[in-house]
C-alpha cells in the first residue's frame, strides 16, 4: 500500500483518539472534581483535533465548522462547573 499524506492524517486521527482515551483514564481516577473536568476538557480538545485532521484527510471544509463549534463551546462546561460550588459557606465536595 502506498501511503499518501491523507492516510497519515487518518493515522493521526487514530493516535489522537488514543490520547483522548489516556486523558479519560485521569477522568476515571479523579481524585477531585477539578481533575475530572480537566480531563473532559482535554478530551474535548482531542476531539477538535480529530475533526481538524479528518477534515484535512477528506478535504471537507465543513468538518472545520464542527471543530469551530467545538472550540467555541469548549469552555462552557468548565464555566458552569467552577461557578457551581465556589461560593462561601457552601459545602465542600472533595470528599470523593
Amino acid at each position, binding site marked *: 500500500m502506498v501511503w499518501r499524506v*491523507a492516510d497519515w492524517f*487518518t493515522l493521526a486521527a487514530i493516535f489522537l483518539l488514543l490520547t483522548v482515551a489516556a486523558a479519560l483514564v485521569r477522568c476515571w481516577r479523579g481524585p477531585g472534581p477539578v481533575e475530572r473536568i480537566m480531563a473532559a476538557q482535554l478530551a474535548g480538545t482531542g476531539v477538535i483535533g480529530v475533526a481538524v485532521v479528518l477534515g484535512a*484527510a*477528506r478535504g471537507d471544509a465543513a468538518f472545520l465548522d464542527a471543530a469551530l463549534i467545538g472550540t467555541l463551546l469548549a469552555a462552557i462546561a468548565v464555566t458552569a462547573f467552577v461557578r457551581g460550588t465556589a461560593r462561601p*459557606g*457552601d*459545602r465542600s465536595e472533595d470528599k470523593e
Partner: protein
Amino acid sequence: MDLPLSDILSAGHLYALTGAVLVGLGLYAFITQRHPLRQLLAVNVVGAGIFLILGSLGRGPDATDPFPQALVITGIVVAVALTAFGAAMIVRQAETRAAAKPAADDNARGAS
C-alpha cells in the same frame, strides 16, 4: 478518500451495532440505577443509540441518506429539551423534599 464498498458497508453496520449496544446499556442502567439524574443520563444514552442506528443504516456507498439525518437532528433537539425539563423536575423535587424536612439543614433557600 475513496474506499472499497465492503469497508463502507461494514462501517455502517459497525456504527449500527454500536447503537444497538448503546440502547441495551442505557436500558439496563435505566432499570438498575435509582437516582433520577442517572436515569436521565440513561435515557439520553438510549436516545443516542437509536439515533446512531437510524443514521448509520442510511450510510450508502456514495452518500448518507438525508431523511434519517433530518430526523436525528430533530430528535437531538427534542432530547435536549426534554432533558432540561427532566433536570428541572429533579431539582424541584429535591427542593420540595428538602423544604419538607425539619429546618435542621437550612441551606436550601439560598442555593440557586
